[in-house]
């Protein structure tokens, strides 16, 4: 069969195309973005007319995927871990409705927060929703897991969650492809009671979901991703998902013989866990992320047989590594070289010529004469305004929180109350907050730093490009107080004057600081040349 070098994210995308999806739905977010990007440029996906444009946010993506499933076709929805918070309402309730065509949800967690605000573990969501969850260890398993997940979804009539992490998503390996499958025919759902979650129906559906759990456990017990490394010994390791790789790495290099139970599917495979735990007096639990199953296996009365992240055998936070696992297995640490003191940090920075730079210059200069200098910001490249030389922002919490936090602070009496949000983040989750502000006539200014793209994740389309003025006007912001500025060094005094006027206005104002991302400008120039 055809083999190729693929990122974990790309292996997932290829598997979904081969599994016969009719659509992928997603909002960009590191480390999940490359899944959808692969499908968007794949020739087979295009030949099969797989729908793949970006969605406005993870909730709209999830619901559209569910709608495609309702119509009988297979759909994929992908997001980063915090995106599942946005889609959580739809996600949890889709476990109650169940599916028609196969629905697979790929969520990419980011332990160690390489590019995120927290390191939440999506397996908790899998448990929360009572859904089958698969956690592949390798790029090949990621491919196989997605093919399997679609079949399983249609077999048990539930969405299937596939949980990956940064290291798997952004690491390349050789992946073998299996025979592609045809897309499903249109076959809309006929059972209304399944989908209308009125309490009377929902209670029936919820009971059915709980009854299905026995079947899900037995699927986990027969999971193709379950593996046991047999050998005798007092001490064994239960390794979940990618943690298995680190355990095996240490066993390989140190030539250790330790029994290992590899688990990549949830709910837990009860039979194998029971057998393994009975055979060994001490068991190390190696999980990437939260100690979700360590907590469960230890139990409330804390069975001392187990060690892991909760007792310090492994660190409580951050991603695992071969060295962390080696330490937990009692392997002596070799002498490690130390980074010379002269090495300076090189943090990420806004690009030279970036429009956000000029926006922050104007903002800082304007705010210099105000007593209160509080800027609520948001998630995107412009979060780098937190770093020198700007030091321009006071918050970055979650998608859209700049607008609503500025509103709350304005309600408390803070003047000026300023939000800085990017164009894509604004359409993702800022519009509803602005409507709240308009309805309350909150004295605040929203600066939409509009570079006409979703820049931080690599320049994906932004849902509101060229329509932000109309959107703000439609919500009810007075046209006199929707101002457009072009953030360029030569415009700085004019721009500062506009900012001051709107900061001093006792109502809702929006400033569109509009200039295209210089990265996308550069890419377009290159494409034109070629």
């Amino acid at each position: 069969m055809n083999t190729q070098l693929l990122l974990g994210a790309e292996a997932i995308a290829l598997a979904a195309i081969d599994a016969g999806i009719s659509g992928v739905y997603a909002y960009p977010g590191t480390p999940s973005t490359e899944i959808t990007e692969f499908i968007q440029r794949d020739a087979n996906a295009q030949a099969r007319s797989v729908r793949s444009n970006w969605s406005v946010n993870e909730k709209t993506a999830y619901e559209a995927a569910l709608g495609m499933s309702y119509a009988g076709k297979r759909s994929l929805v992908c997001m980063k871990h915090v995106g599942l918070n946005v889609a959580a309402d739809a996600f949890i309730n889709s476990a109650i409705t169940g599916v028609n065509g196969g629905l697979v949800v790929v969520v990419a967690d980011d332990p160690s927060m390489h590019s995120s605000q927290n390191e939440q573990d999506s397996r908790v969501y899998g448990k929360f929703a009572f859904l089958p969850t698969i956690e592949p260890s390798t790029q090949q398993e990621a491919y196989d897991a997605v093919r399997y997940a679609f079949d399983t979804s249609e077999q048990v009539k539930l969405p299937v969650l596939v949980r990956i992490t940064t290291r798997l998503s952004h690491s390349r390996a050789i992946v073998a492809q299996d025979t592609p499958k045809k897309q499903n025919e249109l076959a809309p759902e006929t059972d209304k009671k399944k989908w209308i979650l009125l309490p009377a129906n929902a209670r029936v559906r919820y009971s059915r979901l709980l009854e299905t759990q026995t079947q899900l456990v037995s699927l986990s017990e027969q999971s193709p991703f379950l593996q046991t490394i047999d050998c005798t010994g007092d001490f064994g390791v239960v390794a979940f998902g990618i943690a298995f790789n680190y355990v095996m790495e240490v066993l390989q290099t140190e030539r250790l013989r330790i029994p290992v139970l590899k688990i990549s599917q949830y709910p837990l495979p009860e039979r194998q866990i029971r057998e393994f735990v009975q055979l060994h007096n001490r068991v190390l639990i190696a999980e990437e992320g939260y100690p979700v199953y360590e907590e469960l296996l230890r139990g409330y009365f804390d069975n001392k047989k187990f060690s892991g992240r909760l007792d310090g055998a492994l660190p409580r936070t951050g991603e695992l590594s071969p060295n962390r696992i080696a330490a937990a297995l009692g392997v002596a640490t070799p002498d490690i070289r130390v980074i010379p003191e002269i090495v300076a940090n090189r943090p990420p920075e806004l690009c030279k010529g970036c429009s956000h730079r000029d926006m922050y210059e104007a903002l800082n200069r304007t705010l210099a004469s105000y007593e209160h200098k509080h800027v609520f910001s948001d998630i995107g490249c412009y979060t780098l305004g937190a770093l020198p030389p700007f030091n321009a922002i006071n918050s970055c919490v979650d998608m859209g929180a700049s607008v609503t936090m500025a509103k709350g602070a304005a309600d408390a009496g803070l003047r000026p109350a300023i939000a800085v949000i990017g164009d894509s983040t604004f359409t993702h989750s800022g519009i509803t907050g602005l409507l709240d502000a308009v309805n309350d006539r909150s004295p605040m200014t929203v600066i939409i730093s509009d570079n006409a793209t979703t820049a931080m994740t690599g320049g994906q389309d932004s849902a509101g490009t060229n329509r932000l003025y109309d959107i703000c006007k439609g919500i009810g912001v007075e046209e006199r107080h929707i101002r457009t500025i072009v953030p360029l060094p030569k415009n700085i005094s004019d721009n500062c004057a506009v900012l001051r006027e709107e900061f001093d206005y006792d109502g809702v104002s929006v400033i569109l600081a509009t200039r295209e991302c210089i990265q996308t400008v550069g890419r377009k120039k290159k494409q034109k040349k070629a």
Partner: protein
Amino acid sequence: MHKNIILAGVGGQGILTIAAIIDLAAMNSGLKVKQAEVHGMSQRGGAVESHLRISDEIIYSDLIPLGAADLILSVEPMEALRYVPFLSSQGLIVTSTEPFENIANYPDPQNIRSAIENTGRCVFVDAGSLAREIGNVKTYNIIMLGAASPHIGIAKERLEESIEALFRRKGKALVDLNLKAFHKGLELAMN
């Protein structure tokens, strides 16, 4: 056959292109490959690294263990030092000499050089000058690949084929330019 290579540089310097060439050459040599890279926020002028592992045996971890890298290939001198905890006791550093100074507190380049020399085995490459000699500064990373190529464990021909394969769609002129850059680096390594 087993090689652990750390690729280092600053976002935008082209270490992922180096990685892609080695990955493909390794696969075409019948070897197994794992190569972890950094995407997202750190790409904006920040420090970037890639862990590249090649072996004829199964490779488990996507990350190279500390103290286990055979080679640090860096396209920026200070960045070479950032990853020395990964370098094995006998490991080699191949680095360019031209500093990428996008921070205010960039250390004295002479001190950087001494610190690299103190690690033991190292090769310095003035890739900037070589790239300007060739007439295209963008070949910087491929010169570095050429200079490190005798230490990668893959036949020169496989690397040349990969360069051809990866630049083919951009035209023959670019293929030839990059092959020239590769040989320029290789020549330097051989002397």
